[in-house]
């Protein structure tokens, strides 16, 4: 695709995104996303789950633009709470390190400004990557048949399990629980009922919103109530504009972060969480001020914020060109696409060019809103922390109920949400992350459809998984990954036992001669 055509496509996208209606939706998404994202325990995944029902009554283009705004707003909100109060969410752990150190040094405003500007730079670089790469990748997607899709989904499960939970065993098990929950309802081919236990409201399957709100909204509320955390609201001063030498330090780091984030955002299992750690590590190696990183350096905020934003943008590429979400947030986005009647995949750019290019353009507009609206008014947004949590959580609970009810105007869906709230809490207490479950739930029906098709085409033989080149590469990577996990587990175990054996005689000697 030549450059002029892409620029024309982007201009076409701006034409759609720059209508007053879409601008308002984008701004509302950014602000509401940030306000909810600021709340303790509510990262982008929980924020999107909570606010997804808000978009149901909107036209598809507007709904997607608003959701994208909510996502970026929530990410910046996470950064703000990390920098000002050291409240970490999954997507802002790294911001807690140098960002909070800058707050302790009285440079909160500079840290917030750096995070905002770096997000803008990261977002801009990622949009260029997205505009060039997504159409190319959707041509590659045409090489994918049912066997390749199955292999890609399995590869995605393994990557997400490892990245989100750290334990591939726990994460994979949660993915499979999600896939099984996705089986509840009507069979895709025969239309027969499966696992509905004769409950009429389950005949259309379990609602994604019920699972997402239960596992993230309700479980998080309960965890926060259990923790009885008393947080004092931020009360320091905020001076936003940095000095020129400080300003000059932002750019190299933000550019490095943008490149790292844009690359890692495309990888299966990648996304903002892993990108910010990688960008931080790169800055620690390459920055001119690497000795200051960890003690409140601007680079420690700029690099990770740019990577965070860039990865959030480029993770849309596999979703929109292959139709496969590569992390749980993208899985929720995919659900939002489908609810709005759009099937993400290779045909999306050709069938809905207005939506695709409109969304790409609105990402950049969202960045501008973040910079113009959220950064200067951060002092006002922080006042949300002045509301006591005991007054706030009944309101979150109310939105969970109304959000669930408003999908089908069905009270019975609230029982499902309550059930998943309890399950979500049990999972949380067992340290089982529900993010892979959401991915499994959304990809489960797609995996089943492609698996059944692959089996029919190949007459029940699994050989196609190793004879087709793309799937052979993906399957061997999964196999190698398992081998590596197994080997490292046993090596670690052996090391621990050797250490324990070495310590045992010394302890026995101490026990024999206590006087010494």
């Amino acid at each position, binding site marked *: 695709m030549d450059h002029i055509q892409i620029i024309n496509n982007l201009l076409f996208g701006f034409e759609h995104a720059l209508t007053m209606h879409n601008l308002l939706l984008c701004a509302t998404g950014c602000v509401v996303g940030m306000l909810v994202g600021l709340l303790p325990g509510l990262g982008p995944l929980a924020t999107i789950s909570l606010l997804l029902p808000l978009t149901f*009554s909107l036209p598809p283009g507007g709904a997607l633009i608003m959701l994208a705004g909510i996502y970026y707003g929530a990410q910046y909100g996470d950064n703000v709470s990390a920098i000002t109060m050291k409240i970490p969410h999954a997507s802002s752990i790294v911001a807690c390190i140098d960002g909070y150190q800058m707050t302790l040094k009285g440079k909160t405003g500079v840290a917030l400004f750096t995070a905002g500007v770096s997000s803008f730079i990261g977002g801009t670089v990622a949009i260029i990557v997205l505009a060039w790469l997504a159409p190319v990748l959707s041509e590659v997607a045409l090489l994918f048949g049912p066997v390749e899709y199955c292999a890609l989904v399995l590869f995605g499960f393994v990557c997400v399990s490892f990245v989100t939970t750290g334990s591939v*065993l*726990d994460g*994979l*098990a949660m993915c*499979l*629980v999600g*896939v*099984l929950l996705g*089986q509840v309802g009507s*069979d895709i*081919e*025969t239309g*027969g009922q*499966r*696992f509905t236990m004769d409950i009429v409201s389950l005949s259309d399957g379990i609602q994604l919103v019920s699972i997402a709100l239960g596992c993230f909204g*309700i479980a998080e509320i*309960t965890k926060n*109530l*259990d923790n*009885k955390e008393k947080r004092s609201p931020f009360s320091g001063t905020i001076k936003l504009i940095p000095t020129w030498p400080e300003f000059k330090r932002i750019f190299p780091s933000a550019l490095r972060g943008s490149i790292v984030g844009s690359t890692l955002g495309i990888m299966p299992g990648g996304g903002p969480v892993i990108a910010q750690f990688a960008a931080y590590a790169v800055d620690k190696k390459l920055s001119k001020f690497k000795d200051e990183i960890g003690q409140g350096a601007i680079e420690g905020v700029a690099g990770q914020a740019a990577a965070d934003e860039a990865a959030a943008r480029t993770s849309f590429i596999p979703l929109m060109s292959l139709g496969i979400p590569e992390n749980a947030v993208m899985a929720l986005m995919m659900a939002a696409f489908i609810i709005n009647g759009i099937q993400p995949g290779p045909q999306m750019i050709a069938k809905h060019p207005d939506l695709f290019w409109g969304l790409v353009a609105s990402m950049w507009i969202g960045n501008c809103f973040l910079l113009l609206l959220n950064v200067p008014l951060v002092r006002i947004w922080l006042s949300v922390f002045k509301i*006591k*949590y*005991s*007054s706030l*959580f*009944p*309101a979150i*609970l*109310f939105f*969970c*109920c*109304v959000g669930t*009810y*408003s999908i089908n*105007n069905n*009270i*019975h869906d*609230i*029982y499902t*949400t*309550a059930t998943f*709230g*309890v399950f979500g*809490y*049990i999972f949380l*207490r*067992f*340290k*089982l992350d529900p993010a892979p479950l959401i991915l499994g739930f959304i990809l*489960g029906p797609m995996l089943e459809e492609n*698996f*059944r098709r692959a*089996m*029919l085409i190949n*007459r*029940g*033989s699994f050989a196609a998984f190793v004879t087709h080149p793309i799937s052979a590469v993906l399957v061997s990577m999964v196999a190698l990954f398992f081998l590596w996990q197994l080997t490292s*587990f046993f090596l670690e*175990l052996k090391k621990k036992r050797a250490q324990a054996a070495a310590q045992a005689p010394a302890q026995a000697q101490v026990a024999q001669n206590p006087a010494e």
Partner: protein
Amino acid sequence: MINQNVGKGILLALVSLFFLLQAPQLTVGSLNRPGPGLFPVMVASGLLFLAVVMLARSRLIEPAPFDFHFKNIGLIAGALLSFALISEFVNMLAGIVVMAFIACYASDDFSIRRTAVIAAALCLMAFAMKRFLGVQLPLY
């Protein structure tokens, strides 16, 4: 003390068994003509295998305590269920008030006066959502 590692293995085994025991009611078919039961049986068997591996792993690694607070999750789930039941049989406004009171009881500094204010604010919000956003809520 309940060992977290054993507990999660048992929980996941129970989930897989729930699906495995129901799957024979569906047509399983064969690999070259898969029926609606085949895929769930394969996935549930995979989950059962992982659960068994987790249980085996729990014997090799140090136990971790399982920390569970019944009161808060009971009250929050109770608040949701009462909201649904009262909305179904009385109306949603009454459901919101009851939900707010049950939920607020879970917080450390429960106060009847503050809860009444929260309930009133939530009722007003529900009115606004119905009136201005057109959300179909059976408020009264």
